[in-house]
């Protein structure tokens, strides 16, 4: 149950406005993505909390539509 890269980008950009977002399709199969997000929303959060925020904003997409997402998050300094 893959998801199109464009759709994923829009979804993330919608939840993390004014952020630097890089989405890469690692295997070219719409199912293995690398996602990097740099957002002020992460400021002051632990790494686990940052990732949890992303997972929550994707609303259960992980593991259903998205098998694999490499995630890198960063606050703004």
């Amino acid at each position, binding site marked *: 149950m893959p998801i199109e890269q464009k759709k994923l980008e829009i979804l993330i950009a919608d939840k993390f406005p004014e952020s630097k977002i890089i989405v890469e399709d690692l295997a070219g199969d719409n199912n293995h993505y690398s996602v990097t997000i740099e957002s002020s929303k992460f400021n002051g959060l632990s*790494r*686990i909390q940052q*990732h*949890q925020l992303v*997972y929550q904003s994707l609303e*259960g997409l*992980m*593991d259903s539509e998205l098998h*694999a997402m*490499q*995630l*890198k998050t960063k606050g703004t300094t």
Partner: protein
Amino acid sequence: MELDNTTKENIEKMIGENEVFLFMKGNPDFPMCGFSSVASAILKKCGVNFGHCNVLDDEKIREGIKIFSNWPTIPQLYIQKEFVGGCDIMKEMAESGELIELFNTRGIKTEIS
């Protein structure tokens, strides 16, 4: 989806009895997913003893651990009952040296090989 008490107790028992514990797909010798493979390789490289649970053997643990940790993916690393993170966080921590430091400060024996 809810976490039933038996599953919760099972999870608490596993992470309570092992200072370092990895929920993974497959086992450290035969990981069944690339991410689980990376995670167990990192722990092996640190030279720590760790327990593991193959979530593919137990559907209740597989779904339950996601609720327990509020984390949607496997693998998941616990150190002294504390959730540390998944594969990406483990990779970052291994690369920066934070993981070894964490083991050291918690008094967990490591052998960098």
